[in-house]
């Protein structure tokens, strides 16, 4: 039985959730995705940025994990394409989120390094499909 601990397969599809209001994704813009769409956030991404494995839920489920009152685009990419640009995803299931995956090398301490900045820039250019926007549903704390 799959529980989210199995390694991320290159042929898996994964999602990156971006809030609409950030402007990190915009249909029709060149380029459509900002480098900051993969930027680690202080206090949240100290251990690495998060993505979500499509085998454990669809785009609306991923968006629902975002904050209520905020709408999200969900960017779908192939894990192997991200591996190819140096963004290595590791399975990181969490309570209630078996599909959670992490990129340990892209974290708050490394985000200004040459290597990680290049990874973030290349990642936003891999083939993708954007879903949404969909509403977040996580209650405000």
């Amino acid at each position, binding site marked *: 039985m799959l529980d989210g601990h199995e390694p991320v397969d290159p042929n898996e599809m994964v999602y990156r959730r971006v809030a609409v209001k*950030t402007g990190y994704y915009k249909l029709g813009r060149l380029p459509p995705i*900002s480098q*900051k769409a993969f*930027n680690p*956030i202080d206090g*949240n991404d100290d251990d690495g940025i998060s993505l979500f494995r499509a085998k454990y839920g669809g785009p609306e489920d991923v968006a629902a994990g*975002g904050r209520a009152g905020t709408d999200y685009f969900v960017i779908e990419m192939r894990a192997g394409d991200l591996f190819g640009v140096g963004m290595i995803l590791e399975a990181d299931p969490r309570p209630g989120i078996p599909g959670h995956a992490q990129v340990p090398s892209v974290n708050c301490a490394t985000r200004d390094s040459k290597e990680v900045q*290049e990874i973030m820039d290349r990642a936003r250019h891999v083939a993708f499909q954007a879903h949404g926007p969909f509403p977040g549903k996580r209650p405000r704390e």
Partner: protein
Amino acid sequence: MTALLSDRLQEYYSDIGEPQPAPSRISDQTAESLAEWLRIDAQLCDWLRDPSEIVDADAIAPSHDLIRMARQIVRRFQVQGLQIPPSMVVPDSNGGIAMEWHHGGIFRLIEILTKGETRLTEFSDGHRRFSMQLEWP
């Protein structure tokens, strides 16, 4: 390594096919370019109303002072006659602001960081060529 912001930008925009005029008046810019610069300024003005509305819940919004600084920088670009506005201006989710320029395989990023320092980074086909602090005269 530091450099004057405007001088650096003039230097690096000389190679993207847009001839840079001598320091020119805003009225010399193309209508399309001017409209886009104005749109960006309007976007930054909108941010000032409530910066928390431009970042996700767990992220850090830029301060009012930082947004005002971004407006000053945008204005400076216009006065210097830069014809090509950034492709996008976004919050970096850590209290800073990022401006991105894209032309062919060249990507230039100007970041205004939380303490007010400004950083210019250039990428060529996915490789970072340099990153440097800029002085804001």
